[in-house]
């Protein structure tokens, strides 16, 4: 087997002099014991399992209903216990602050009065919902589920790249990747104390029920999906199945007497908690987009009355806006009186005049992003873009600068990835999933996404990314 260490950025597996890091040594020696034929055969089994089990996602912009396998690389990413502890503590701190921020801007707006963050920036965000000012969600929890994207710089330091507070996806692949790796390469597990993750669905259900309005009775929870054509439909269905709750679409629900009900074959039934995987804009045509066919007319009124829980709470998208992100370190200090445990990438705001000038003058060195998009859409990779493309992009930035931010290009860490009999470095990131119920819990591991194209920085599944199983080791290490 041929292993190639990364020439640029941080290599997750190989340290100085291309010696394997201690926590990878056992894995490498197991892999060395395989022949190329073994590996190829098992990879074929792995692809077949993904296809037969329908573990797929839908790609937008291609012909309708095109299902793709989310490519899976069998070389697991390993995170030692001590490293994970730092990440976990940082994430708990960050999610605590995010929720306090959301509560504040929809209530007293103290942080705006104290000028921790400019009020015009908050109010100009499309994701800030004025309609929800004064509405306090049950137990004051806005983000029941968050997926925070983490990257490592050239020195191996972890940084938060962005928070996904609206409808973060990917956790089904985390669970399926573990099952798949276990089935196809069981030998890997013998030498490592890998922390289990398969209790996620029950923790998610517990998290959702924690906020239920009718706690004394038996609350009814559902997963609300936009339907089969949504790119994450597999995940919606997977989570509903794993939690043992109904998967519903907007047309399955109706509002009567300020309560939400499911339409069933033999009458209706009240719903208490909706784990919604539908964006705010489409939730309720009477409050948000009138043309929405995915939502439930009157749903927001029921929510305001406290008769149903929406998880995550509508309006929480403002917290993961890419320009609000720039203020997170200040917000952590402001609400918790603590230094941020996790660092983040320096961010220039189109919203600020000086920053805008810097962005336009240094676009060829920056990654410029729209503030409200996700999935790698609406982004310019300055260092790799032709001049013409940069000019065209900057013209858009100048029209609506508040809608853009820029960050220096961080050379993401690399991880060996199997490519036709060789292990080549490919860039990766990490999306841990954080649940906020009776307390904040971080699923040990998360989704490691891989940029499968050589040299690429883009890890998004919609743009040629794949994934790996992510192992967090228990404190007892090999």
């Amino acid at each position: 087997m041929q292993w190639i260490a990364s020439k640029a950025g941080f290599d997750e597996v190989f340290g100085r002099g291309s010696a394997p890091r201690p926590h990878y040594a056992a894995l490498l020696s197991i892999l060395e014991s395989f022949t190329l034929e073994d590996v190829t055969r098992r990879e074929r089994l792995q692809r077949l399992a993904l296809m037969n089990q329908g573990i797929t996602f839908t790609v937008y912009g291609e012909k309708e209903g095109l299902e793709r396998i989310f490519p899976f690389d069998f070389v697991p990413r390993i995170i030692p216990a001590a490293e994970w502890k730092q990440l976990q503590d940082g994430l708990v701190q960050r999610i605590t602050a995010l929720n306090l921020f959301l509560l504040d801007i929809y209530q007293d707006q103290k942080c705006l009065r104290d000028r921790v963050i400019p009020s015009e920036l908050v109010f100009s965000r499309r994701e800030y919902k004025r309609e929800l000012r004064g509405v306090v969600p049950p137990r004051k929890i806005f983000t029941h589920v968050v997926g925070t994207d983490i990257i490592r710089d050239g020195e191996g330091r972890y940084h938060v790249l962005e928070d996904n507070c609206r409808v973060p996806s990917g956790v089904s692949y985390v669970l399926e990747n573990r099952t798949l790796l276990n089935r196809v390469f069981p030998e890997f597990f013998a030498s490592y104390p890998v922390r289990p993750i398969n209790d996620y669905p029950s923790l998610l259900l517990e998290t959702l029920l924690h906020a239920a309005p009718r706690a004394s009775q038996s609350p009814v929870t559902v997963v609300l999906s936009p339907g089969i054509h949504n790119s994450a439909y597999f995940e919606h269905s997977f989570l509903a199945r794993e939690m043992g709750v109904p998967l519903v679409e907007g047309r399955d629900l109706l509002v009567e007497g300020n309560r939400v009900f499911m339409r069933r074959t033999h009458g209706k039934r009240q719903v208490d908690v909706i784990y919604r995987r539908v964006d705010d804009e489409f939730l309720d045509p009477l409050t948000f987009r009138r043309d929405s066919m995915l939502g439930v007319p009157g749903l927001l009124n029921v929510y305001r009355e406290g008769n149903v829980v929406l998880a995550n709470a509508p309006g929480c998208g403002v917290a993961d806006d890419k320009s609000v992100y720039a203020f997170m370190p200040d917000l952590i200090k402001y609400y918790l009186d603590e230094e941020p445990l996790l660092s983040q990438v320096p961010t220039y705001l189109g919203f600020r005049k000086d920053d805008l000038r810097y962005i336009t003058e240094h676009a060829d060195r920056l990654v410029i992003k729209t503030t409200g998009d996700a999935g790698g859409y609406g982004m310019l990779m300055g260092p790799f873009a032709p001049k013409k493309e940069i000019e065209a992009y900057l013209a858009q930035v100048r029209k609506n600068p508040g809608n853009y931010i820029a960050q220096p290009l961080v050379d993401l860490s690399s991880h060996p990835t199997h490519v036709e009999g060789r292990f080549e470095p490919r860039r990766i990131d990490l999306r841990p999933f954080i649940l906020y119920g009776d307390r904040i819990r971080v699923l040990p591991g998360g989704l490691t996404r891989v940029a499968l194209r050589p040299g690429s920085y883009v890890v998004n599944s919609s743009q040629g990314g794949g994934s790996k199983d992510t192992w967090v080791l228990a404190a007892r290490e090999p």
Partner: protein
Amino acid sequence: MILSRVADGLYWMGRYLERSENTARLLLVTEEMSTEVFGLDEDLARAEWRDLAEIFPGPAVPERLGRHVGGLAAATLQALTFSPSHANSVYFSLKRARDNARTVREALTVEVFVNLNETYQDLEAQAGRRLNDTPAFRAALSAAHRGILSTVGAIEHTLTRDPGLLFLRLGESMERLYRAATVLRTKLPALVAPEPKVDLPLLHMRWRALLRGLSSLENFRHSYGARLEPLEVLHFLLFDPHAPRSLRYGTTAVKDVLDRLSGTGEPSAPARLMGRLASELTYRGDEVIQRGEYLTFLDAVLDGVTKAHEALSTLYFGT
């Protein structure tokens, strides 16, 4: 009780799964029959393919291909096995069954979905290749047929006994009943004609093919022996209380599911419709056989099934 949308999805999954099985089975039987009789009676071979096109309507075979039986057979095999645009092809029905299964996956078990998905994926992979001879077609069809039956087995073995399973069974039974009645309605006029146009051995072969096409040859032999008396075959396929593809059994199966869905209260509108049909099939068998009124009777069955489908869609799916 379950969501109306989920009930709808399961009902159609059951219908399409059954339809795909029916198409695969009848294709295999027709192909074999046509190959066997081609040298003896080319018109009869052609008629078999035409009947099949009537049972599973879809785009017509182009004139130039339909001129020779070989061309007609090849074109029909291709269309009814792999065509994505023929609404009755095995591929189309399996795809629809799978699409419905995907929308209600949380109501299914992994075993059911994986069996169905694998069968679909295998057939899709075959569709991409050019199958250049009949044995290759037969192999692909037989594999799909086995996959479908294995999915049905997974349904029986792994799904919880709840209303979801009832709606799946309802779809399956409705489709089976409708398709069996359609097969009989298409085939009987030539078979019961006072002066059949073919020799007796060939006529025997056609009755045999009819029984095989409805998965009933072995069951018939258990009841009546190997001799194929047309009236006995007719009685068996229409009025036998135990044969799984007889109209009487099929109607009772649909009625039983509808009664269970109605619960202890008054029978629902579709249950009443099927109840009426079931009593006709139970008590009027001898009369229909004596008077030779098979075709009118079959029209009434097809009409009853269509009405019951409409009534249950309105009642349970709100469509």
